[in-house]
């Protein structure tokens, strides 16, 4: 179990590192084609990449804390929502085959992908060169 977790963590770390180094490229896809398991609301661009002919998809969504896992939680407090990141291995028809455990590393990965796809570095460099 520990070994399996280590492999998964190392895999996500490598995804972050390769994305930051510009070795791994992600393409933006239409969020309409992505169906979330508990009808959560997707609040970001959905990114996809292919590694060894397997596709990975990542997006940000809002999870309702009072409806965790499809179960209604009765609470006197106000309903709270939480922004989460989901990384999935998907098939040819974009159905999820495996969902990675949501943790802080996935947020870091999503931010790295957003940053590399935004082209902000290029924009800044070009703008500074032009002056």
């Amino acid at each position, binding site marked *: 179990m520990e070994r399996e977790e*280590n492999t998964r*963590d*190392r895999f996500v*770390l490598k995804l*972050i*590192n390769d994305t*930051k*180094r510009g070795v791994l490229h992600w393409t933006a896809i239409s969020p309409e084609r992505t169906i979330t398991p508990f009808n959560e609301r997707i609040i970001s661009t959905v990114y996809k990449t292919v590694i060894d002919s397997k596709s990975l998809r990542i997006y940000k969504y809002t999870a309702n*804390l009072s409806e965790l896992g499809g179960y209604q939680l009765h*609470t006197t*407090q106000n309903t*709270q929502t*939480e922004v989460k990141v989901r990384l999935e291995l998907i098939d040819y028809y974009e159905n999820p085959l495996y969902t990675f455990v949501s*943790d*802080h*590393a996935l947020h*870091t990965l999503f*931010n*790295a992908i957003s940053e590399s796809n935004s082209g902000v570095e290029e924009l800044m460099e070009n703008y500074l060169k032009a002056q």
Partner: protein
Amino acid sequence: MNEWINLNGNWFSFLGLAISILTFMVAVWNRRGIEKLNKKNLKRTRMPQINSDLKTSYNSVTNLRAAFEDNRQEIKMEFSKISPLLSSLQKSLYSSEMKNVYKLEKSMSQLDNWMTEENNSGITTWLKIKIGLKQQLNESHVERVMINLNRLITEVDNIEKDLKYE
């Protein structure tokens, strides 16, 4: 009846005194417990800030790691910021929540012996490397720390969420 009261009066006085002492001791013990709990709760309020600092360190190391060979020194410096944060975090956590703190501490226990410069020409350094006292900071060291740091951050995130419902 009067005779019975006279006979047992001393015993009842003694019993009353014993109950008073016992009540006093329980009150003192409870007060200490409450004080301890209040202290812990006060320290618990520091937890989100410490976790935020840990996230900043994590993100900095992921940025630096993209050019690992050039940033060994900076990565080591970033790691050295984590130890004091862990000391503070330990005050906010209960013993049952410490597992990931200990794991992270263990993965960074050799931090002082991780070398960041290629220059190991000195005979003492050479000897220390040979007998395994010193090691060049490598990607696998960083990876181990990052994995444990990520697990700790995620756990503290979950504790913070649980606290909202307490």
